[in-house]
């Protein structure tokens, strides 16, 4: 494995150069929630294509959302928000609320915490700039789970599934999340969720193209009077260096269950390791003082 080869005196190659002639443009999703109709075709298509196992039927009793959140067993999740608000152009007597619907997914961050903290190298960046777990390498240490600032990745536990089965077939004990349909991308196809989306709320393509298109879309919406329309995750200057899968939202991110200002925890590594080293020095100093100190 190349992991054992030290590249002394050379800067290690990172994506996309590390892929040499196999490198591809960075691919991603633009999820335009203003045209999402909450059909959940994306959730179904994702489960079918990726053979994500059935994790039981749960009734939330809160909204049409019975999936709840992204997890090892849900790689697309449609959020439903009912708001007591006037809707422009609609008679006040017949409408005093609006629906917000949004299909959430792994953000495939530029600076991905899951990838940074993974001790086995199971998580890697593909030639498309996406982040994928290698199921045969992951040993289920679970570090990526609390590292993700979005609560995307999860460990698949036997207790969460209604059916029993072979652990390799079901992928038990390892972590799972959206792969941006790595297998389909390799064959020049678009991801299952984007293909299934009937309203083009989920758009797939090269990230640069999507960012330009999203900018035009948000400007157009604002011209039409939808002042609250904003892009979420489209800027490379944010705390994770920009999302590979970003969104157009009609309210604040936290209303959709998204963090308003996510920061990749590894950005603070110098501070974290610095404190650990200092504390280690304090411990060594205490030992020396305890042993060398005069008689009490």
């Amino acid at each position, binding site marked *: 494995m190349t992991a054992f080869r030290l590249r002394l005196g050379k800067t290690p190659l990172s994506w996309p150069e590390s892929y040499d002639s196999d490198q591809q443009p960075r691919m991603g999703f633009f999820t335009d929630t203003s045209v999402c109709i909450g059909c959940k075709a994306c959730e179904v298509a994702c489960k079918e294509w990726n053979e994500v196992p059935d994790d039981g039927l749960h009734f939330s009793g809160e909204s049409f959302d019975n999936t709840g959140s992204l997890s090892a067993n849900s790689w697309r999740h449609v959020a439903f928000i009912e708001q007591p608000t006037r809707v422009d152009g609609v008679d006040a007597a017949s409408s005093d609320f609006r629906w917000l619907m949004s299909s959430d997914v792994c953000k495939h961050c530029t600076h991905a915490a899951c990838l940074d903290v993974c001790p086995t190298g199971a998580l890697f960046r593909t030639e498309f700039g996406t982040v994928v777990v290698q199921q045969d390498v992951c040993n*289920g240490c679970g570090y990526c789970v609390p590292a993700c600032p979005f609560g995307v990745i999860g460990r698949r536990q036997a207790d969460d599934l209604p059916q029993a089965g072979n652990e390799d077939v079901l992928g038990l004990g390892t972590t799972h999340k959206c792969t941006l349909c790595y297998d389909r991308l390799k064959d020049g196809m678009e991801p299952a969720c984007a293909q299934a989306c009937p309203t083009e709320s989920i758009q797939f393509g090269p990230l640069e193209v999507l960012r330009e298109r999203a900018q035009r879309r948000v400007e157009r919406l604002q011209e039409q009077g939808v002042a609250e329309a904003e892009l979420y995750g489209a800027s490379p200057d944010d705390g994770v260096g920009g999302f590979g899968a970003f969104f157009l939202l009609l309210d604040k991110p936290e209303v959709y269950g998204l963090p308003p200002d996510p920061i990749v925890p590894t950005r603070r590594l110098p501070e974290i390791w610095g404190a650990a080293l200092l504390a280690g020095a304090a*411990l060594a100093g205490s030992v020396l003082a305890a042993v060398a100190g005069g008689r009490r």
Partner: protein
Amino acid sequence: MSNGAGSAGPDGSGYRSYYGKPVINEPVWEPVIPAYFFFGGTAGAAATLGLATRLSGNTALARTATYVNAVAIGVSPALLIVDLGRPERFLNMLRMFKVTSPMSLGTWIVTFSGVASGLATSLEVIGRLPRAKLIAEAAAGALGPFLSTYTAALLADTAVPVWHEARRELPFVFAGSSAASAGAACAFVAPPRTARPARRLAIAGAALELTAAGVMERRLGFLAEPYKRGRVGALTTAAKALTTAGALTMLLQGRRQGGAIGAGALLLGGSLAERFAIFRAGLESARDPRYTIVPQRQRVDQRAATPA
């Protein structure tokens, strides 16, 4: 709450969320992990104490520290492996060396410490090759402080609010707690006549642990709530009470065997309770979206208020 319109107050009142659901995923680690923090931390500080006492000529205490270290590092791999989702793949941990992953670096620290400690202990038992034993003890003793503190870096390098926002203080809590438990364990078993450095280390460690935990809770502000409420609050109080009582007993009665045993037990209990309190506070702060959303919303609002 999901439909509230107000912006968040400094204590997090009036914040908005998606049906009160968590934003980040709760860690899937089991209680064996905080138990490992305790044993691994104790092993690290004991290894360093063992080396320092060996070099100072206190052979009796050096032997005790070597055995304490051996027991503590001996149980550690089992605790770590049993928590894996696929324990049979534990060797995959050694595929890489990644500084961005405190768990990767930690695995290498535990591995080298374990090998060095195993060698030192074996040579101590059979009483042969003193030069090789000293080299093994030196390796374990040099790695010891980092074995005790890397686990704090591991927790800090997550999106869990009470861990990540305590990234500057957490390693000092762990260092203090490790010194206290290692000193306590050695004072517990060693004859009081030779155990003076162990008693001092235990008292100094307890002082560091209590001070750093106090600073941590103060700087966390409202994020420190999980340390003050419910079962985690009780655990935090127990940790402080046990550590304080243990340090005082060690100071006043530690020169008697009975006193050292009582003080040692109190301090070990305090150190263990502290690790569990920190672990459980992290789970609580991951579960409640308020701790994730409110500080981030405040950052965004602050940036919007200050012109670029």
